[in-house]
């Protein structure tokens, strides 16, 4: 089989590692739809599926950065669509404050992304991943000197 050399990243090109925390009912199904629809998107995402965005403890995000993520994406059901009625509303309040705290301590909005993607939005998911990957690629590797990074 012929391999396309241009697709193989050389060690000098930076390929961001992005951790995504997604909910089981909307965004994960959206990602699945993107896959079954054969939509191609950036391979930089590592998806971690959870029952609900309400289950995503802010510590998960810190852990991801600690262990080498260049960016984190959190995604769940649109407001009003939560499988558990209000999990995403609870999560939204938490993230509104948490992102400000992280921004103040050196993790800006070019590292931490939030979105609503429903089970029907395969195209939105693919576009989102491409867009986030492009942004993080531009931002470069997460600073090794950040206090939240494992030495």
């Amino acid at each position, binding site marked *: 089989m012929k391999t396309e050399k241009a697709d193989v990243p050389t060690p000098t090109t930076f390929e961001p590692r992005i951790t995504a925390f997604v909910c089981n009912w909307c965004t994960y199904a959206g990602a699945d739809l993107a896959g079954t629809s054969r939509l191609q998107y950036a391979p930089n995402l590592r998806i971690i599926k959870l029952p609900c965005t309400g289950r995503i403890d802010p510590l998960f995000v810190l852990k991801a950065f600690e262990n080498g993520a260049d960016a984190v994406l959190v995604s769940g059901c649109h407001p009003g669509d939560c499988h558990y009625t209000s999990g995403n509303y609870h999560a939204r*309040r938490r993230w509104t404050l948490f992102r400000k705290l992280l921004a103040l*301590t050196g993790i800006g909005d070019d590292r931490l992304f939030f*979105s609503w993607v429903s089970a029907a939005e395969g195209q939105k998911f693919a576009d989102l991943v491409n867009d986030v990957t492009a942004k993080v690629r531009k931002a470069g590797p997460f600073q090794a000197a950040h*206090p939240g990074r494992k030495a």
Partner: protein
Amino acid sequence: MMKALRQEAAKLLQEKRAALIIGFAEREGHPALFISKPEDCERLFYDVSCRQNLAAYLSKPEVSARRPVAIVASLAALRSLVVLTAESQAAPGQVLALAVDKDAFLGTFDVAGAAELLRSKYPDLGPEKALLERVGELSKKSVVERAAFWAEEFAKCTRCYACRAACPGCYCARCIVEKNAPQWVSTAALGHGNYSWNIMRAFHQSGRCTLCGACEAACPQGLPLMVLNAALDREALEEFGARPGYDPEGKPVIGSWSAEDDHSYMR
């Protein structure tokens, strides 16, 4: 002022409205004083250098076994009392406050009375101006500079958890840092563990912190913890209108929600 405070405390014990008074001692550092005899009330002391928030003792089993309890409470400690009541951590009718403000004794209040006093006389308690200026200055820096600032500060942390012990809001019987299966927060007093700990400590107080400053005063390493607390306080006020410590029946900011909450940052 001190005379009025001592007399009132002695009266509460004599009339058995309180079985235990928690106040400040006069000696250096103004440690907490636990009094159960009216004649000992002469030892009570208060001035602005008494930085401890005595509401932190209310959740201790040794104290809750000796209710009704009265605490010497600054305005911030009064707010803490209201927050603890709203979170079902202080039984109404079991706690009284000997309210003090700078060099004035304001009287004895139960929780409802304390909330009423705060609402009527002190409706906008918030971070001091100098503190907000520090937050503003830090926010103007680049993310890399902010990271460098906190890397230097958090590096000093020895993880003694004095900040946690001093805080009335930190009453969990088992804190996340003591959970080790899985180990959420590294226990080594180094970079990422210190970052996680300090971020989570501040975040768990968001929308609940009464800005008493006891955590920062207790920190043996002088970490600017109030910068984080003040920033979150302003954020919670702006986004959700949060004024913790004014309503004993109020809902916590994190733990409640509204369909109208802003989500302009969501993609």
